[in-house]
């Protein structure tokens, strides 16, 4: 699974940047088409939900998704054969 921010819904409030325990969300720098600074993802493969929610069959942490007031954060299935980075836990 991969973490995505829906640019059509995000209003740029940056609440996700303060609640993620992995600090994956960074305040955006470039305004998008609607003039909104959508946060950027810093190595999203570190997110526990990306790696483990399939295995556990439930949403793990999910703080960003619950907090996002605009329902803009979700996890998506990768396309078949999509290249992806892997985070190694140690």
């Amino acid at each position, binding site marked *: 699974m991969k973490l995505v921010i829906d640019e059509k819904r995000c*209003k740029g409030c940056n609440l996700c940047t303060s609640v993620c325990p992995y600090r994956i969300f960074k305040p955006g720098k470039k305004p998008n088409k609607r003039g909104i600074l959508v946060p950027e993802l810093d190595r999203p493969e570190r997110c526990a939900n990306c790696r483990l929610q399939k295995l556990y069959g439930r949403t793990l942490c999910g703080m960003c998704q*619950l907090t996002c*007031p605009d329902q803009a954060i979700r996890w998506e299935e990768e396309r078949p054969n999509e290249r992806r980075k892997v985070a190694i836990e140690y």
Partner: protein
Amino acid sequence: MSYFDWFREDRLPTIYCAGCGNGTVINCTLSAIDEVGWKREETVFVSGIGCSSRASGYIAADSLHTTHGRALAFATGVKLANPDLNIVVFTGDGDLAAIGGNHFIHACRRNIDLTVVCMNNQIYGMTGGQGSPTTPRGALSTTTPYGAAEQPFDLAELAIAAGANYVSRWTSYHVKELTKSVRAGLETPGFSMIEVMTQCPTNYGRRNKFKQVADQIEYMKTHAMLRKKYDTLLEKGEPIPEGAIVIGEFARRSRPAMGVRRAA
């Protein structure tokens, strides 16, 4: 299935300002409903008027968006007409405590089987930031330009005194605890009142020294105090820090309730 399936995706994004806490509260409420597994056709969302009360319009289930302050009156009617329906009421501080104050205490007294989620942003958000009955002393609003002179209502204490079966208070920062608490409210027969302190960056934060949305969230994080700790401080006669927001589960009891779901 996740709680996202309860949203009317065609209605998103919401009309709420960037950083408004109402969206977070809707997430937590729907997440709790999803956890208990309520059926969509047996669930009704009722709300009054206000930004917070627009919540019912974003949910894919039967809903009543009623007149200002009357959400509980309508919800009582729905519940007594068909006790087999599950009812969640979304309301604001102005809606519940100002114009709807009497409906509120009497719904608590009757202990009707409703779950009320009150998004308390301490202001009339929708109409431009007038002071509400929960605006703290000294806070600025358009109707209190020199700081509110009156003492605010404590909605949770009010609900306990009036007889509600389940009462708790959380903030929009405490999303996990809030979800758990809403779930407990849904599962408790009788009146459940979950008060959620939410940020209103546009009409409250901006006038009260919270320049950024994150500032008000930070304030809730640092000033929240669990009920237990608050009680010990009181007992020991120690001073309560200024601006503390007492959070936690305040009441869980089983007084006789009205309109409880009939056994299948």
